[in-house]
């Protein structure tokens, strides 16, 4: 009973902490989790062992809370992580129309639907179904990954070349963003090969090898853009109702569930890719469905991927959070599974209840203060975190990542292309020739 109360307390505290984290644009929950993991090791060295009943619910509730509440800066501050990239356009439209609160709450409803899917559908079925699915798909992951890479690259559309006389100039105009996208993907891929084979990060902190690169690719460019952009946020209307009905919720759940679930289960695939695939596959035109499905997708991706680690008999590790926990704890049987399911349900409910007042608070904040300052503070915190965990080598990697991450922003191509950092080397490794490419590059 004491353990249960301890777990409940840790869940609530973790969720409340995620409120603070999620309101800082660009700050990823995994960055903070990395620091917490180090803290747990440090305490262990001092002879203080933190029980799993504390850190498991604490960290999982942080993931749940962040995956739900991070919608607020995504929608209101225009600083999404890469998995929320598709929320921005319709979201910004809502924001500019003064409906930012409504858009945020719609995404929150989608997130709540995602929690329902996890707890009431995935939870009971996963131990029976997922091991079978995994056994069937295990030998096919590599070519599925290549198909997805091909799809990402081929589905990018030209952003220019629509007018003017035919010729090289028009051709170049049309191909500028496409070429930038391809360039970003391959240059990110090479960076991935370097970091996976010869990372300059100290071996003592190798578990955070990729973190500075991700911060550079995704977080820093958005913070920089927020700081230098001159967009004014119009006054926001706090609505008492939302323009959604049962049909919208169902369609959003189906689309988001498909994308987020796919991303959670397949290695390397992120929520952004899942959202892209789901959006295209279901061909949803309704922007309400679009916004809400991103809430579903994001929760299923982050929380679902973490949950998979605890599914009895499955034995897969997906997502940065699960990889970090794996070094602390080996899940055993249904006890841990029920603990995580309980945490997801409680943290999901608490997060949704916090969402409305937190959104109002952020709206008040950006009405009173220039949100560029918030972005500047977030940027400072992120850089400090990277330095604390990975030192100067990490800052160097972060700087290179920032340069690459700015390319799609400046050339209006998809930021998803930055995921080449993982997609390309891991697809090559899974296909059995990654080491040959690394050898060709002189890395091994």
């Amino acid at each position: 009973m004491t353990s249960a109360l301890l777990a409940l307390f840790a869940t609530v505290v973790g969720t409340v902490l995620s409120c603070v984290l999620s309101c800082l644009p660009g700050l990823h929950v995994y960055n903070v989790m990395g620091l917490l993991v180090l803290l747990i090791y440090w305490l262990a060295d001092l002879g203080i062992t933190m029980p799993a009943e504390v850190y498991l619910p604490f960290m999982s509730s942080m993931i749940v809370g962040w995956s739900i509440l991070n919608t607020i800066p995504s929608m209101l501050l225009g600083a999404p992580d890469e998995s929320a990239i598709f929320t921005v356009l319709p979201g910004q439209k809502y924001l500019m129309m003064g409906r930012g609160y409504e858009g945020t709450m719609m995404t929150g409803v989608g997130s709540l639907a995602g929690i329902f899917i996890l707890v009431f559908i995935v939870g009971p079925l996963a131990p029976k179904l997922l091991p079978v699915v995994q056994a069937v798909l295990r030998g096919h992951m590599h070519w599925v990954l290549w198909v997805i890479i091909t799809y990402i690259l081929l589905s990018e559309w030209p952003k220019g070349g629509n007018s003017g006389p035919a010729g090289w100039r028009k051709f170049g105009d049309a191909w500028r963003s496409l070429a930038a996208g391809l360039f970003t993907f391959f240059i990110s891929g090479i960076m991935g090969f370097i970091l996976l084979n010869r990372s300059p990060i100290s071996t003592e902190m190798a578990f955070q090898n990729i973190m500075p690169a991700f911060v550079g690719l995704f977080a820093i460019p958005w913070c920089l853009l927020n700081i230098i952009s001159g967009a004014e946020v119009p006054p926001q209307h706090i609505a008492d109702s939302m323009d959604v009905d049962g049909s919208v919720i169902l369609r959003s759940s189906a689309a988001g569930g498909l994308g987020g679930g796919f991303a959670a289960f397949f290695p390397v695939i992120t929520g952004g890719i899942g959202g892209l695939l789901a959006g295209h596959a279901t061909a949803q035109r309704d922007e309400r469905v679009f916004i809400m499905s991103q809430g579903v997708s994001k929760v299923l991706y982050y929380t679902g991927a973490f949950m998979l680690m605890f599914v009895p008999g499955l034995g897969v590790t997906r997502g940065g959070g699960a990889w970090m926990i794996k070094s602390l704890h080996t899940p055993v049987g249904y006890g841990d599974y029920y603990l995580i399911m309980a945490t997801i349900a409680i943290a999901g409910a608490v997060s949704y209840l916090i969402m409305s007042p937190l959104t109002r608070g952020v709206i008040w904040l950006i009405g009173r203060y220039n949100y560029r300052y918030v972005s500047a503070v977030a940027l400072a915190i992120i850089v400090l975190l990277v330095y604390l965990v990975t030192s100067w080598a990490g800052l160097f990697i972060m700087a290179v990542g920032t340069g690459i991450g700015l390319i799609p922003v400046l050339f209006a191509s998809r930021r998803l292309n930055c995921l080449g950092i993982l997609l390309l080397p891991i697809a090559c490794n899974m296909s059995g020739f990654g080491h040959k490419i690394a050898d060709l590059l002189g890395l091994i």
Partner: protein
Amino acid sequence: MTTDTLPGHEQQPEGITCSSCGRFVGPLNKCPHCGARVNKRLSVHVTRYAAVLLATAGLGLLYLYSVNREIPTIRIGDIKETMNFAYVTIEGDVTSEPRVFKQAGRVRSIRFDIDDGTGEIPVTAYSSQAQALVDAGKVPRLGDRAKISGSLSVSADNNVLMRLQSPAQLTLTEPELQVTAIADISQDITDPSVLIEGVITAVREPPANSKAPWTIVVKDDTGEIPVAFWQDIHAEIEEPHLLEAGAKVSVRAGIGSYRGNLQLRMAGGKDIEFTGRADIRSMVAGPGAPVMVAQATGPAVSTPRYSPPAGGRPQTESLMLDEVTAEKKGSRVITEGVVREVHDPAAGSKAPTRIIIEDGGTYRMVVYWEKVAQQIGNNKPQVGQRIQVRGDVDVYRDEVQLKVTFPDQITILSAAAPVAAAQMDVDYAGGPADLGEAMPAGQVTTAMEGQVVTVQGVLGEPESLRSGVVYPLTDASGTVKIVLWDRLVAGSARDALDTGITVKVRGPVKPYQGVAQVVPENEQGIAVVQE
């Protein structure tokens, strides 16, 4: 002085009118009317290409920085949880016979253990890397010195694994072995493998369709000993037709035991070298009771049993504790003392267990690592007990210590000792009968979770796990999976098992993915019934 500009010139944005004549010039850099150069503002679009250039240059620098940086060499004992995914180099000795897992003729993985003196970890190469190792003849052998670079996988419960990413990053050095007289071979030899020279006196070929191993008997002037090897190793022997009685051979093999008798185990086809022929009838019988076997094939020929010779070279020196000094470094000694302190390593640490013993005011440290600690289990020496230690003298940080590599090297002498550690046996001390009566394998179900059962049957094709191996065990009633975890079953015990041999296994039933599995809790839970 006034300037001659057109009306409204002042209001026009800079860059689209001529700063000299004031006429509209649009995007042109030179005024078409007066020929003056027109100053343009720097286009934001241009800065985009600067970003591309910067990113490319940064990546280039990162690449140069990375390739010019040595892959860090670390000690196994220093591996920490935060080193997950670290790409490192480890140098050490191969301490287990590498296992090659195949499926449908393709090599799926290769696995072996490496020990650098501070600890031991398993190394695994998967699919294409494993196949490349086999193709290049770079599968390590027991006792080889290996330098390996690869990626560490560190998870909870001190579960560490190194993944070899490229065959080029495995460098092997064969140990320079001196020829060992057969009479001198015993479990006391600390080297993982020995080199013997002699004449084959018997060859036992496994029956057709059997997966039992080959056995040859090698004899020298001091005795004789059986040497076993699997059929795939037989296929690697360059001149297998020379494998017959009377052939002079030089054999490199690991030391093991089978049913309580010493046995050498060959790990590769290159480990045997044919050096000529001898007439075995003319050989003088050695102390090992010679066995005259002509072309011995088939079940009619029995494997000669090895008898320990009298007067063999002493391997271990018996010393008082104060005689165990730094000068004895590298030698194996037997000594005694009273346990004064016992220090267990911190959870998750790769450090050894340290026991301080004292005798006549002299203190020495005895160290052993996790594998030995697991095998010792509850029989760990306690403070106040007098123990006898057989170990290798080493000096670590200017301190003399005794390294223990097998649990039976520690014997508790005091009467209060709960169980003498010397009674333990890392090999198969217990016979099949000790494991109790076997139940039908087909009747082991998930409903029996936690129950300890005994099953007997033939082992099928093994499947490599991250930290162990799974064998299907089949009897007349069906099949049940046997899971041998590295942390529970010693490598020497796992290496003795292979497809086709009949074993008896005892352990608790643990369901996994809806399938019942029997998981022996130590090597005493496994007994070979028939090879």
